[in-house]
């Protein structure tokens, strides 16, 4: 690729003023003429090409002039600023910056425990963050303000753009500018066909290629790629749809967790949940009646190879009912396949083991029997911790003596020689229960809710024997005796448990629809080029027809020259290139060579000259 120092249409230095506007230029393009002449300043961006270059995009014009006085003027000015590209840009930038703190500072919605820890560790900073809403950034006033402003701006931008676009669809593509050479892609040739025939053929050809084309005077004006604008509008509209879906989802959602040991069940009412959160508009009275029972939880793991310990199957076999009549159905829930039930979804979240124990007190009476869920501390091999609380126990002589046990459960004990108390494998290969025992007051009477996985040590005393804490590692079937005849605990066996999340979130379908529309829209907006093509055919001074073609796209239109060449090729059968009387046949076909001169047929492409006036056939023909 090489360049000349000037436009081929511009006269050489001997005629600097270029007053010789082609006499043949018709009246029809007079309106666009002057604007076309000013194209140097913006080229493909289009706005200074006047009518011809106008509205290749519906992007709002920048306007930063100050308003005329009066409140109406100010309101209008403010609205124009808010809906300008500049402010949209600023708001987008603010949105991305504003999202950062939420990823670095603990968030209540994700991990409330961490937030409390943070507040305890950083007293002043914590208080300040609290004031600024830093622990719930995405629902804070300032973050909401940014995105609401952005969406107001977006609506204020889309509505006028849509009107404008509809207007553009109703109008025809603008007429050709007088000097097509000013356009970013240009070609010309001479033909023996009559101008009218060429134009008719051009219109047909362009329409066949799905251009919107019409004839104006001695030129055909055509435009294509309106879908780009449609895509862009759809994209921005889809963003609004997604915001609405998001809002609906968070205002009406409900979400709760439930841990269930094998054999137990759940029914959808507030008291049944271990934890529960809901959106502002969620009404707990309208909870759908449904429930399910966990019959069996299956987990299998890879036993050998580098993948050893990798879970292969997690499956909860359940039976569920829905509605008041409550007919039971059997099914299973897996990690990535939730159960869809009465507008809610039930997800399998995690699982673990619940050792079954029998506790007898000093009187020899069985005061507790059942499975106690232990929480895994190591997600790989399931070394788990937990507690057993037995408030009803008494001593030999009948005095209240509440019992508490604390310890851990190891599904696969490595053996004495392994030197590790940690589980070696996640399955129940060699289970052990290790407990120590406490007695006294469990603190349950205070009425405050208590963590079921922890003992409140305040009123408790650890059982000691020979100055050491009583502790025992038990296999299934083994029993630990408490000192002083206070009773015993027997490790009977193990039941698996699974925890579920039950979530109800309306608006998911809407969000997905919006997302897909946004995706299609943005792809259309970025991959489709909107461009205009003009074809002019006029009779030159020597009676031969001069065809000119030019294309205009947005500055990023990458394939405009290629497309124009293609179109010229398609027009060639109707307007074959006329032999040029004095051209050198060897040079005439030398198009592969890069030439520094104007368009073909060039008189002398090899001569690197700026004085291309004579080399330009149309100019020459019209002069």
């Amino acid at each position, binding site marked *: 690729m090489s360049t000349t120092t000037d436009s081929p249409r511009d006269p050489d230095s001997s005629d600097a003023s270029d007053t010789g506007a082609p006499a043949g230029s018709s009246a029809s393009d007079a309106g666009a003429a002057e604007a076309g002449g000013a194209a140097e300043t913006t080229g493909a961006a289009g706005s200074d090409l006047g009518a011809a270059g106008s509205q290749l995009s519906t992007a709002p014009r920048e306007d930063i002039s100050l308003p005329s006085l009066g409140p109406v003027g100010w309101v209008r000015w403010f609205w124009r600023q808010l809906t300008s590209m500049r402010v949209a840009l600023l708001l987008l930038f603010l949105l991305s910056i504003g999202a950062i703190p939420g990823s670095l500072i603990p968030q209540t919605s994700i991990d409330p425990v961490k937030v409390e820890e943070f507040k305890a560790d950083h007293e002043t900073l914590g208080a300040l963050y609290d004031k600024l809403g830093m622990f719930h950034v995405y629902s804070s006033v300032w973050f909401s303000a940014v995105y609401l402003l952005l969406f107001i701006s977006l609506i204020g931008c889309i509505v006028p753009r849509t009107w404008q676009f509809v207007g553009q669809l109703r109008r025809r593509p603008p007429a050709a500018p007088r000097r097509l050479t000013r356009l970013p892609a240009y070609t010309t040739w001479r033909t023996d066909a009559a101008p009218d025939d060429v134009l008719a053929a051009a219109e047909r050809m362009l329409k066949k290629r799905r251009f919107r084309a019409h004839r104006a005077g001695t030129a055909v004006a055509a435009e294509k790629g309106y879908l780009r604008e449609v895509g862009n509008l759809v994209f921005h509209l889809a963003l609004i749809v997604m915001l609405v879906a998001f809002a609906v989802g968070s205002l009406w959602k409900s979400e709760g967790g439930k841990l269930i040991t094998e054999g137990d069940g759940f029914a959808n009412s507030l008291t049944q949940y271990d934890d529960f959160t809901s959106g502002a508009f969620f009404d707990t009275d309208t909870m759908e009646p449904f429930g399910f029972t966990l019959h069996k939880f299956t987990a299998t793991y890879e036993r050998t190879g580098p993948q050893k310990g990798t879970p292969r199957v997690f499956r909860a076999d359940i039976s569920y009912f829905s509605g008041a009549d409550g007919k039971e159905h059997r099914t299973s829930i897996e990690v990535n396949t939730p159960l869809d039930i009465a507008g809610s979804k039930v997800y399998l979240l995690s699982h673990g083991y619940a050792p079954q124990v029998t506790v007898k007190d000093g009187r020899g009476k069985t005061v507790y029997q059942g499975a106690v869920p232990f929480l895994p501390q190591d997600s790989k091999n399931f070394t788990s911790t937990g507690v057993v609380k037995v408030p009803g126990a008494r001593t030999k002589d009948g005095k209240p003596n509440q019992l508490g046990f604390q310890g851990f459960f190891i599904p696969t004990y490595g053996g004495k020689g392994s030197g590790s108390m940690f589980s070696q494998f996640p399955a129940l290969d060699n289970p052990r229960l290790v407990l120590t025992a406490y007695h006294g007051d469990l603190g349950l009477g205070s009425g405050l809710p208590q963590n079921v996985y922890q003992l409140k040590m305040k009123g408790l005393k650890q059982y000691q024997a020979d100055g050491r804490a009583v502790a025992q590692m038990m296999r299934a079937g083994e029993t630990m005796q408490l000192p002083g005849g206070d009773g015993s605990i027997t490790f009977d066996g193990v039941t698996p448990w699974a925890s579920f999340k039950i979530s109800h979130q309306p608006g998911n379908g809407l969000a997905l629809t919006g997302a897909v529309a946004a995706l299609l829209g943005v792809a259309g907006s970025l991959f489709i080029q909107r461009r205009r093509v003009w074809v002019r055919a006029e009779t030159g001074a020597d009676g031969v027809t001069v065809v000119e073609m030019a294309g205009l796209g947005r500055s990023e239109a990458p394939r405009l020259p290629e497309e124009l060449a293609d179109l*010229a090729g398609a027009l060639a059968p109707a307007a074959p290139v006329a032999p040029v009387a004095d051209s050198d046949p060897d040079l005439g076909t030398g198009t592969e060579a890069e030439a520094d001169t104007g368009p073909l047929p060039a008189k002398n492409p090899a001569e690197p000259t700026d004085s291309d006036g004579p080399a330009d056939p149309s100019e020459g023909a019209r002069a």
Partner: protein
Amino acid sequence: MNIAAAANETLAHNSNLLVYSAMAVYTLAFLAHMAEWVFGSRSKVGRTAAALTAHANAPAAVTVRSTQQGGGTAVLERPQVITKTAAGSRDVPDGPGAAGGTEKGDLYGRIAISLTVLAWALHVGGVLTRALSVQRAPWGNMYEFSTTFAAVAVGAYLLLLTLKKNIRWLGLPLVTTVLLDLGLAVSVLYTASDQLVPALHSYWLWIHVSCAIISGAVLYMGAVATVLFLFRDRYEAKLADPAGKQPGAFARSVLERLPSAASLDKFAYRINATVFPLWTFTIIAGAIWAEAAWGRYWGWDPKEVWTFITWVAYACYLHARATVGWKGRKAAWLGLIAFGCYLFNYYGVNIFVQGLHSYAGV
């Protein structure tokens, strides 16, 4: 240990060998590229300066190109299409490339590319054997992610080369950073082949992660082009203003040979604009998967937050290009910030921030 396990260990071992060999060959490619630049510096082309001074007062000039094959049968002469650079931008030709038109430089350049192809083959082999050894897609931790990322970036570069795109200028920066990335991967980030948690057993994960890796690797090329654009743009601005400070000899020699600022800018834009829909899709796929696995499609988990920030930052970049007064350098800086967000999402968030996505294991 049974036979299958042993075979897997052998595969993992072979994978490491392949990655190390790839690094050795990349190093040779790096040296060949250096030779290309050194030999190329001996040619004094000065096209940029010539173009800029000759055009100092001229309006937008015209470039002439030959057309593609036209459609007419009887036509011997095809009309030529004249293209005109967008006004307002400088009308500067692309530089001649690292070799500067010298034969020796060009030879080394070709050697460098051949070596890159060889290194890439080894590299891909390393990634594939790693995948076989763990019997899953090789994206479970940062070591695997980094090696795959680099393989995709080099693959995209080689693909564009095969398509005869003018991107040989990308060779040296790309090979250099790939070496850094792999070095970091085998030393700091190395993790023995490991397992995945069951939440990751979803085909949406493969779609989501592979799109994320492809997006990032391709965006990386855009980011390199943007950095070069900033240098080259300043260089051209200095040349265009003969009264001002002129670039030094070294800067002149290197930047002269790069494509023009306008070409680099256009390349970066096309990359970013092409990847933006893919990145949008990556987010959607992630949301669908999160909905299936965790029961919510969006939860402002740190990883999600940074994916969102990256997306908004690229939207900013695209908007800036359509906004008067923000085109050019300012938009370029926004593009770099956006890529910085992408990088932080993968390195920063994995290392510094705890979240649901922290299964990866550094």
